[in-house]
């Protein structure tokens, strides 16, 4: 258990965060951008659990933050998909470049 240094686990979560950032930068499709955001939120969750377990094992606050983040991510995904489906009805497309009426 403790034979893995904490920095190796943080390597995984940092890499996952930046993979999500890469997806957010390159994708132009709303659903795939939402998937990148899910990856980023997951990397944050890993960080919370690992810090809680390794650095403050007598407390539970990291676990609570993880649970709340998962809950809010579920609400956010539901809202985002409702908006995406509504956008598809009016624009016949879910590309971010096509939804620019509110840009200026």
């Amino acid at each position, binding site marked *: 258990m403790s034979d893995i240094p904490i920095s190796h686990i943080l*390597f995984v979560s940092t890499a996952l965060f930046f993979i999500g950032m890469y997806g957010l930068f390159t994708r132009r499709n709303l659903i795939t951008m939402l998937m990148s955001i899910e990856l980023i939120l997951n990397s944050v969750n890993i960080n919370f659990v690992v810090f809680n377990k390794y650095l403050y094992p007598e407390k539970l606050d990291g676990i609570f933050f993880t649970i709340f983040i998962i809950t809010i991510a579920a609400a956010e995904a539901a809202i985002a998909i409702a908006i995406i489906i509504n956008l598809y009805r009016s624009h016949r497309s879910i590309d971010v470049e096509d939804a620019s009426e509110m840009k200026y």
Partner: protein
Amino acid sequence: MTAAQIIFYILSAFILGTAILSVTTRKIFRSAIWLLFSLIGVAGLYFWLEVEFIAAVQIVVYVGGIVVLIIFSIFLTQQSGKEMAKASLVRTIASALAVVFGFAFTFLLIYDYGFEAGNKNFDWSVSKIGSQMMGTKEGGYALPFEVVSILLLAAMIGCIVIAMKSKPEEK
């Protein structure tokens, strides 16, 4: 190398590999399936960390809820076999460079800081989590719990209102 170490490195490679495939594949349905595998890998990492409760929540909410929702919305909005348009080369290179340098910088900071792990055992149990979640004393999470429950209700009503088809005016 012990078995725990080998399992950890296999899990990490699995998570990162499927995540990279998920953000780079051109077919949107495959992208959702790779995301599913990546989330299962993260749940496996929680099992490896011996926080089985979070792993179960991860599987139930993410794998069973969010990914299914995403796949449904793909079916509702796209032809799933069609390939997505390629990002322009300049954008790909620029974002890859930004991501690689950002990762190198962040990880260098983390590595230099050198977190000192204690030797104490992490003792959590579902009953401890539950009593602290509902606790109103110091360290209790009753207020955030109520706020999140109101947020979920608002999100649910908001989804229905947003996605509802507006009826054509009768007469």
